[in-house]
């Protein structure tokens, strides 16, 4: 019993510590985003004044293009998510249920690709996009992103598909359906959680991506919000932290909401296949 109690206390201490570690930077971001002056901790003489002006400025000032960046990120991430799920579903179905030559090679190839460092790709990608004049367009990001998220998408979807017995396909085909119809009408509905997990992880991945966006976009027409925030600087050493934190808060909203609401699916996606022995 003593040990039970000791454990209880330790756990609760642990909870407080964890909450503090994980949340304090996030809370700090919000606090500064609503501050009139970001340096209010520098001295007692500088007060903390709550204000909405940072948000008003970044939303209202066209020159700053914060909302453009945000829009670009949302559009690109959404298109990539939909495309990646569709493409990976097709491919995942083939891999998990069909027999053909070169299966292992393709599987290993795609998995190997997840190891590649972006720096080994971005230089050539830049030259390629330059040559076909795609620099600073949505498509310059969409296509590489889809390729980049294929490993994780396939990983999750294939592990879901594999859990479904092949009798289902056979039953459908006996009823006169072809492969594609079997996929669409039978397998996919049953894999809905897997599709959902994949969508979430792909969306998060595409939204967050930095290096490609940094090199392949040049202005507000296609630049995404991570790059916009990273390049958001001030004058002669005076960085506009208030506005930067406000931009950061806005950029965080979609992801935080998605994570909080759908954490179950995210967790399932992350652990998919990792535990199957």
């Amino acid at each position: 019993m003593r040990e039970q109690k000791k454990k209880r206390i330790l756990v609760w201490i642990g909870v407080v510590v964890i909450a503090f570690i994980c949340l304090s930077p996030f809370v700090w971001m919000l606090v500064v985003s609503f501050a009139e002056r970001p340096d209010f901790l520098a001295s007692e003489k500088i007060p903390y004044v709550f204000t909405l002006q940072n948000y008003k400025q970044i939303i209202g000032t066209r020159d700053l293009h914060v909302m453009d960046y945000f829009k670009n990120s949302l559009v690109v991430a959404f298109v990539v998510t939909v495309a990646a799920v569709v493409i990976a579903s097709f491919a995942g179905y083939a891999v998990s249920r069909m027999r053909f030559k070169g299966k292992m090679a393709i599987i290993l190839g795609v998995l190997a690709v997840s190891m590649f460092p972006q720096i080994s790709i971005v230089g050539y990608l830049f030259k390629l996009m330059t040559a076909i004049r795609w620099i600073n367009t949505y498509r310059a990001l969409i296509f590489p992103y889809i390729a980049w998220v294929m490993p994780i998408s396939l990983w999750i979807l294939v592990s879901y598909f594999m859990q479904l017995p092949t009798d289902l396909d056979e039953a459908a085909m006996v009823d006169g359906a072809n492969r594609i119809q079997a996929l669409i009408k039978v397998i996919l509905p049953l894999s809905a959680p897997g599709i959902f997990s994949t969508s979430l992880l792909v969306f998060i991945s595409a939204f967050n991506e930095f290096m490609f966006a940094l090199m392949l976009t040049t202005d507000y027409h296609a630049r995404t919000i991570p790059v916009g925030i990273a390049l958001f600087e001030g004058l002669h050493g005076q960085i506009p932290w208030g506005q930067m934190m406000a931009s950061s808060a806005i950029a965080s909203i979609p992801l935080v909401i998605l994570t909080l609401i759908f954490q179950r699916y995210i967790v399932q996606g992350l652990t998919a296949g990792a535990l199957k022995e």
Partner: protein
Amino acid sequence: MGKVFRGLAVAVVLGLIFGFVFGGVGVAANTTIVFAVGGAPSEIDYWHKVISSFEKENPGISVDLLRQPMNTAVRMQTLVTPLSSRESTPDVFLMDVAWVGQFAASGWLAPLNDFVSKDHYDLSVFFKKTIKLADTYRGKLIALPVYIDAGLLYYRKDLLKKYGYNHPPVTWGELVRIAQKVQAGERKHNPKFWGFVWQGKQYEGLVCDFLEFIVSNGGNILNRKGEPVLNSENNIKALTFMRDLIHKYKISPPNTYTEMTEEPVRRTFQSGNAMFERNWPYAWGLHNSKGSPVKGKVGIAPLPHFPGHESAATLGGWHIGMNVYSKRKAAAWKFIKFVESYKTEKGFAMNLGWNPGRQDVYKDKDVIAKAPYLKALRKVFVGAVPRPGVPYYTKLSDVIQKYVNAAIAGKMTPKAALDKAQAEAKRIISQYGGTTK
């Protein structure tokens, strides 16, 4: 579910079409040129005013201001990317004088000579040395100076008088003596007081300060042939002096080499805690702004030099250039001329406190009335020394920053530091020094 899936497939196709057709480079109007510039909100607002005046005088041309971040390194990167990929926009942009070299050698700047001769454009109104050393590449004019910066010595007029001096120091030795005396005296009631504050942190600004010290002792980074001469005797002496300011004479604070950039230096002086300051002209307006503890007590002078040599000031400032891939060069040239016009340049001086790239504005009555110190500054600007205008300057700068900072921090002897810097500079030049001016 099948319906949903079909719907999704349609969404994918639509999305890709959307991405293809609409996403990205905007559809341009007839003659719109894109002008990339960064700066403080007040400066950006002023640029908008300049643009509206231009558009009024040139109906049919509209200027799209592409706002950039202010940090120089980041600003350069956001220009390097479109220029490397041969984008036609931005058509016109401002460049830090430190990167004009790289841009010119990379072939990104449109030569302006034809425009100049066709319009009989008068180049003599600009600072000759600047045009020759910074804005010309292989005989072609590729940029024009919008505003000039050069390192200055700020000093406390009141303290100078209080301790019995009647003019600011001319040699570094004099500066040390004055600074030590004032520091000793002021420390009695202000323990945070320092004799001389300057930029020593490991960043680009350190190279500017370093250049001033060494050139004022007859040395330099590269010689006339473009060869590195970092470890010359003169340079070693100058660097030793820089180190001694902190460790031997103790008139410069120990955080000089860990924190001191433009703003910390300015704030130290402005809060009344320093006798001498090395900084750019921008500090003047702030020192004399409402509420500044040193308002009205500040004097400016050329930086001191070592005996037998001359005062040196590092050339800073921003220049305007034209994208060689621009599809609207004629309109771009009109805009450049407008920005460099007497009226606009005078406007920069009067409204933003900038030091114009045109010499003639310095003689303007209104300008002199508003900023009397500009007359003195003009002399400094005429002799300002640019950093090496080589395309690989950033790499060279990294090396200099590293070793100079190590020397003034006392981690290496000045001779060892400069020997190493010289060796690495040689390596860099053998890698990248394919062509010289």
